[in-house]
């Protein structure tokens, strides 16, 4: 078996999300509507450290029981600082199909680490979860993320008109998908 590490990259690594240690930091991320919408289901508001701790514990417990969600903290190798979250959800193992989210806490971390984190996420999705298809939704205003996922080989599949409300305006929501054969082909080209 190819034992290239799944969780260790050149400048970042994945770990479990730790409700005790990470809750205070994650609470500070709840000023971002995008973070709250994707991870806390409810309506956009800030969440205290205590609330975050409780919610994360519940989510991790449910994920462990149902095996329909997988969460990873993304951390810098140098400082162990948590800079983002990777979440696989809507997992349908019988269809070999899932969705995912890649969230970075700040623009600097996104610029530095998003390509590497996405590369690691895709390897986990196709070589460990053994998926055939992986997809995510992006709001049309998030041009940097759109470029990131297009660079990694994702194709724009759907465009839901006015499905996102952000900073006072409606935007379209885009679905991006990638299939295992497409991903594998890119791996060969890289080598």
């Amino acid at each position, binding site marked *: 078996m190819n034992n290239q590490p799944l969780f260790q990259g050149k400048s970042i690594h994945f770990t479990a999300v730790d409700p005790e240690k990470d809750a205070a930091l994650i609470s500070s991320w709840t000023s971002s509507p995008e973070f709250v919408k994707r991870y806390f289901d409810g309506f*956009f508001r800030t969440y205290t450290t205590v609330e975050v701790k409780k919610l994360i514990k519940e989510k991790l417990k449910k994920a462990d029981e149902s095996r329909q969600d997988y969460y990873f903290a993304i951390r810098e190798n140098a400082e162990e600082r948590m800079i983002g979250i990777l979440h696989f959800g809507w997992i*349908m193992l*019988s269809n070999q199909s899932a969705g995912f989210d890649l969230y970075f806490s700040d623009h600097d971390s996104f610029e530095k680490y998003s390509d590497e984190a996405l590369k690691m996420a895709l390897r986990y999705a196709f070589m460990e979860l053994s998926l*055939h298809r992986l997809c995510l939704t992006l709001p049309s205003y998030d041009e940097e993320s759109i470029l990131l996922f297009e660079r990694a080989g994702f194709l724009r*599949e759907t465009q839901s008109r006015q*499905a996102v*409300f952000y900073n006072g305006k409606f935007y379209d929501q885009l679905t991006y998908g990638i299939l295992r054969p497409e991903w594998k082909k890119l791996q060969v080209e890289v080598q």
Partner: protein
Amino acid sequence: MNHGFFKGNLVDLVPMDLDKDPEILSKWDRDSEFKRQFDVVPAVMYSPILSKEWYEAASANGATMIIQTTKEKKVIGIIELDGFDWAARSAWVGIGIGEADYRGKGYGTEAMQLILEYAFQGLNLNRVNLNVFAFNTRAIRSYEKCGFRYEGTQREVIYKEDQRWDVIDMGILRSEWEERQKIWEREPLELVQAAS
């Protein structure tokens, strides 16, 4: 005058009769074609008790209603509006006609028109989303009749019968729905009735 929702010419949308209807839902489960078009997960069968629990759980997060014929008061299907995003004012709709004899005759189309009226006039939504399997051409025709527009294809989402199947995304905006009301006002339900 108070305008009530959920009342059509062919069908009404009603709350589930928790004593009688779970038995009917459980019976529909034996129709694997129905189950395969209704959900992406592997087709499973629910006992009446589990059907009831499923309905109660679904009702807690959205509007789930039974589709009942106006004449014979026969329970023929189920429709739900859920996954609300109150900032974007959008929701997801799902529909299934469990009684095979009532498919392709305009009953589902009218149920969808009723729930769209509720979504836009009752809940002030701006958009309603749906997903449909690419092989379900009858459903796609019905959604188009209701004003939904094609918004793209998610490739190879489903793996059944040793094949990969696409899922189609459709959506309707409030402005499009309002535009269509003008057409229906001129020629309201003849279209639907003609199909039956």
